[in-house]
């Protein structure tokens, strides 16, 4: 039994007060759930993906629950980077939240526009590039599936900022290790693994897909073992690369599993939909796990999986 657990962790050069971040697209822009889960109590919040201009998003229905998970096809509905900078960021800054801005564009130039706008603001801890959204026609997954496109994108953004660049990768990429290698070689500071799995739910009575766009992205506990496998594979291939694990974390013990697989921090996504205080509870459960198991510093867990 340990009484004091050091929860702080590092993702590359960035220090987080604990390893639990709210995942993009599940926590609004950071302030929506303050009554349930103050963003400053978390390791960080990753904003809803921001594009240069507001996006209306996809037609409905957009979501459906599936066994131990859900499929979504929101289509990156967002208020645009300008509204975020003027209406949201000042309050997040004042609260002392660690803000990771998720960046989306349909073209390289659009990613650059978002980053350049945010470079004029204080209070952004890092950028997370969404190159893995399965639910939009242009951009997103195109970059996340092709190492050479990703290389160009990350190199271009690397020149625009000294802030940490995280690249959120797609589990749908045919060669994830090649994509990961390209991102790291081009100057990414960390990799977020993984975005949702492209999936299909069918309404048998209507003989139609359950979400309007046909395919959507699968998240939730159903994908946890798949995500753990990918985190571990990337960790083994690139042991020095800071990884942020995501996929079906509901509890503190789930978070521990991602740390053991090699992640320095984890993101909690779908769990927030079932319980808006989920991120905070994961922090508390992670702390309790460490106390019970005699872990004095949460960083001891990172990559600690005993494979054989």
């Amino acid at each position, binding site marked *: 039994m340990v009484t004091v657990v050091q929860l702080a962790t590092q993702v590359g050069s960035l220090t987080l007060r604990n390893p639990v971040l709210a995942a993009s697209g599940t926590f609004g822009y950071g302030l929506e759930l*303050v009554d*349930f889960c103050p963003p400053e109590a978390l390791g960080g919040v990753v904003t809803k993906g921001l594009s240069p201009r507001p996006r209306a*998003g996809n037609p*409905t*229905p957009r*979501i459906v629950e599936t066994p131990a998970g859900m499929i979504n096809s929101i289509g990156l509905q967002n208020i645009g980077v300008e509204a975020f900078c003027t209406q949201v960021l000042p309050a997040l800054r004042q609260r002392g939240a660690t803000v990771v801005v998720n960046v989306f564009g349909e073209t390289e130039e659009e990613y650059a526009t978002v980053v350049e706008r945010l470079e004029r603001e204080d209070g952004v801890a890092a950028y997370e590039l969404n190159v893995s959204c399965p639910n939009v026609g242009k951009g997103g997954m195109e970059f996340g599936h092709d190492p050479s496109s990703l290389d160009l994108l990350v190199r271009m953004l690397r020149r625009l900022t000294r802030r940490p660049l995280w690249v959120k990768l797609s589990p749908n990429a045919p060669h994830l290790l090649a994509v990961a290698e390209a991102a790291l070689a081009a100057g990414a500071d960390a990799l977020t693994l993984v975005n949702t799995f492209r999936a299909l739910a069918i309404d048998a009575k209507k003989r139609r897909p359950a979400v309007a766009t046909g395919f959507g992205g699968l998240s939730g506990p159903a994908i946890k073992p798949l995500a753990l496998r990918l985190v571990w594979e990337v960790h083994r291939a690139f042991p020095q690369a800071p990884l942020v694990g995501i996929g079906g974390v509901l509890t503190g013990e789930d978070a521990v599993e991602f740390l053991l697989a090699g992640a320095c921090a984890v993101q909690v996504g779908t769990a927030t*939909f079932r319980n*808006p205080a989920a991120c905070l509870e994961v922090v508390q459960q992670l702390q309790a796990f460490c106390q019970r198991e005699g872990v004095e510093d949460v960083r001891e867990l990172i990559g600690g999986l005993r494979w054989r």
Partner: protein
Amino acid sequence: MERRSDQPVILASRQELSPSCFALELLCPGPLTATPGQFIMLGPTAGADPLLRRPFSVAGVGESPRGVLVQLLVKEVGKFTSLLRRLPIGSELSLLGPLGQGFRLLEAPPRPVLVAGGIGLPPVLFAARELSQRGIPFDLFYGAASSHELLLPQEVKRATNGLAVFCTDDGSFGEQGLVTEVLRRLWQKSYSRILACGPTPMLYAVAQLARERQVEAELSLEEPMACGVGVCLGCVVRLHDGSYVPSCQAGPVFLASQLAERW
């Protein structure tokens, strides 16, 4: 600021209402106030099946010596509603809410007319109870496929001083025909606003009637919902300006005039 959170509630009673529908009362130890048209998110306290809570419109809120009683009317349509139908009385559930924008009862000019179809009754019954209590005159039309599918007819009568108009598609009880057809037939010039909840085709017909009679309609919409608190953007509804807004916050009750053209 006070931290908001979900609260554990006890399944206090269950009453079978029809082949597919039942009423529940949930006992909330903590304080809870709701307005007609608001909803709660309800889920199991533990386990990941189902993973997400489900939204339920509140049919009424009452006091009891042990706490607040929340009344729900539920139709068995899937995994969780089937679980709710079998769950032993006294079981614990987790409730988040009340949430959302309900009917604008105090803004509504006299005399509102309330319309419910099938399992769309809860917010309309709640609104009727509230209007009665405030002494605001109103009429209520309640339709279902057949007499077996009319839920809580006695409660509806009580909330309307016996003046509710019942309609069934097959004529087995009350007026025969769709509730919106009956409303059109019995329309009174004094009706100033329509408050409605029911199947989507019924709501389309209500919106059309409101346009014809040049009154506003407040429609309680049902959308698949993951979080209930505005972050998943799964439950969005399209407004006439093309934007999508989460029905858990901007709704579930919308003015028909706000909604996209198809309404």
